[in-house]
């Protein structure tokens, strides 16, 4: 049954709300997870104080538990005793963080270029969020509205916003607009440290765009498509022509995954490539002069591009909506529920990759500016070019 235009628009709107809502909740949760994961790695506890701390149930006694906050405190204090789940202790922190950013005084430096200063965080944020239009969280319909639902009954609710046939191109194009937000914001601040941070960031993102795109060309060549859904499904489940091609495919996806993730770290300004905001060198880099909501726009942009990078990596290299990574599903046949595409698999892979982002941040030192360029131009670009040639050969052999 084809939806009418109005029905189509309503469903699209609902989908946009769901996807944006998902991203907007995931980002604050990710900041909370970052604090907790890094704290646990560093044998600390991290944020435990918002509830379950200072004014909470003291000495283990659940007093004040009749009020809502008292009950929350009691719950959080209790969580501290449970292994594994104790990581959720202090969870209301992410709300407190958001509230703090919202209520902070919004300072615009006197000598800043006001219009650009205000616009650039928005530019970064819009670029980072628009990307999700082309990312498919589930290949088909997530669910079908039951007949009982008025107006929308019987229509499918898809796991993606659009099924662009140039989806990958769209993602890469929009994502690279984000760097303008950073550069313009740094320039408009009219301050020295942001300027240095902005210059670093511009050079870094522009030069890492090349190996990033080259490494994504591998799945493009192997599948012969730019459509997100088709690429991810075919990368996961294509049955190779013979054994050699199958091994070659798996190997190149395995290597390609690491190369792509490395470039992704650089592209999202994360450790070990977080030069643009290297706090020990440039105070806070490009967003030194930003406060309050404007700062949090940059923050949201960075974290949601982390989600984008993880989504692309898991879609094209880790098997996407299917269970097994690196194209293994093509020659290992899983039956029943485990064999099918599910949003759960996809989300699980995204969350695992996000955890790796945080884990790496806790472990590694940071490259120097010129060394970063060396790694990009002298190491990653030749590497990805070779991969590209091998991928083309595999395609030819298949």
């Amino acid at each position, binding site marked *: 049954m084809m939806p009418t235009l109005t029905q189509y628009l309503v469903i699209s709107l609902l989908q946009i709300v769901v996807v944006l809502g998902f991203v907007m909740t995931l980002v604050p949760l990710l900041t909370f997870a970052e604090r907790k994961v*890094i704290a646990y*790695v*560093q*044998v*600390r506890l991290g944020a435990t104080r918002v509830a379950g701390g200072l004014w909470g149930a003291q000495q283990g006694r659940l007093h004040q538990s009749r009020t809502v906050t008292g009950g929350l405190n009691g719950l959080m204090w209790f969580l501290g005793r449970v292994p594994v789940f104790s990581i959720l202790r202090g969870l209301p922190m992410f709300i407190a963080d958001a509230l703090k950013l919202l209520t902070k005084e919004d300072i615009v430096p006197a000598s800043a270029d006001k219009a650009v200063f205000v616009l650039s965080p928005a530019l970064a944020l819009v670029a980072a969020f628009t990307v999700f239009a082309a990312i498919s969280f589930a290949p088909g319909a997530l669910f079908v509205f039951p007949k009982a639902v008025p107006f929308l009954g019987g229509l499918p609710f898809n796991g993606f916003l659009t099924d662009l046939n140039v989806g990958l191109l769209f993602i890469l194009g929009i994502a690279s607009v984000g760097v303008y937000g950073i550069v313009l914001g740094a320039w408009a601040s009219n301050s*020295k*440290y942001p300027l*240095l941070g902005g210059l*670093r960031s511009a050079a870094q993102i522009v030069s890492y765009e090349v190996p990033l795109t080259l490494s994504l060309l591998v799945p493009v060549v192997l599948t012969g498509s730019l459509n997100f859904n088709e690429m991810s499904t075919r990368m996961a489940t294509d049955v190779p022509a013979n054994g050699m091609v199958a091994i070659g495919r798996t190997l190149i996806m395995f290597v390609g995954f690491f190369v792509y993730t490395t470039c992704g770290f650089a592209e999202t300004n994360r*450790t*070990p490539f*977080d030069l643009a905001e*290297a*706090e*020990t*060198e440039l*105070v806070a880099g490009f967003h030194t002069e930003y406060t309050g909501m404007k700062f949090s726009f940059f923050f949201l942009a960075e974290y949601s591009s982390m989600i984008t990078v993880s989504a692309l990596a898991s879609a094209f290299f880790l098997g996407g909506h299917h269970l097994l990574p690196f194209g293994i599903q093509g020659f290992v046949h899983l039956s029943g529920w485990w064999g099918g595409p599910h949003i759960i698999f996809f989300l699980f892979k995204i969350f695992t990759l996000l955890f790796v982002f945080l884990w790496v*941040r*806790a*472990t*590694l*030192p*940071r*490259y*120097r*500016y*010129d*060394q970063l360029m060396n790694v990009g131009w002298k190491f990653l670009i030749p590497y990805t070019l070779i991969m590209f040639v091998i991928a083309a050969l595999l395609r030819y052999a298949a």
Partner: protein
Amino acid sequence: MFKTEEMEINLGPQHPSTHGVLRVKLHLDGETVTRCVPMIGYLHRGVEKICEDKTFFQGQVWTDRTDYVAAISNNLGWVEGVEKLFGITTPRRAHYIRTMLTELNRITSHLLWLGTHALDIGAMTVFLYAFREREEVLSIFEAFCGARLTTTAFRIGGLREDIPPGFEKQVRAFQARFLDCIEEYETLLTENRIWKKRTIGVAPLNAEDAIALGVTGPVLRAAGSSYDIRKAFPYAAYAEMDFDVPTQTAGDTYARYLVRLAEMRQSHRIVNQCLDGLPEGPVMAKLPKVLKSEVNEVYHAIEAPKGELGYYFIGEKGSQSPYRMHIRAPSFINLQALPKMTEGRLLADVIAAIGTLDVVLGEVDR
């Protein structure tokens, strides 16, 4: 229409990685440093002048507050300098306990350096691991003298009190696991390719320049010279200790890192020897009721964690306080090597250089 000029940028006095209130004026051509001028004095309290008004006994509390991460080393320099001035002989047991605490203090100082230096370069976890061990040593200080940082640990002529009960067990518990902890730091850093890239060949200082600039301590030893006052002019109980002076020849940040890690291992060795060979006896010498100095002058240098820490006293006839006191602060003199190490290099190397020099601003400004 277009012109190019060098950018002048102030690194500090409020900057995340200048370790206090150091201000470095940098001239940048792009990211290359063309001129680097350390500017000091933001923490000047006039310790040398204050000590002229205080008795020799009281003056020790100000040494806690110069290099505040190595307070026990400073205390040792002060009390030994004063003992030299008055010709007091300290009991052997006191010497051993002093040596042990000073070496533990060297460990805490190097741990703080390791943590902050790694944090400057971006490895944030080493900081917390280093502080975990540092806390344990600070508890040992607390058990011995009641304070963790501003220790005022020793007295002229010996120690105030003998070691408390349970102290040896506490130290041995720390000693038992400390070598494994150093292994952990090494796992995170020594072989790491990013760490190597950030430190090998960065901020080099050869032995000739280092000696010309008066640089001492691990920075000098990393350049190839094996000058260590503990060996050259033994004080406290170091003459009876068996330890090596670790040296490297490269003179870069990585060499200094290796030297300091090796020094922590040597300190660990010395502490073990002190515990094993701790002699019996009193910890305090018989002192005259009031210390009165004749007119004479004394320079006493010890090997503080940062380098040669010297106390220079001129006594005044009949007075209980020094006529003039001067501290040869290793941080202050090592900091003067910063322009030599960084000019012509990148901004990120300045951060690594400040970290690797291990300056404490309380000692630089005094």
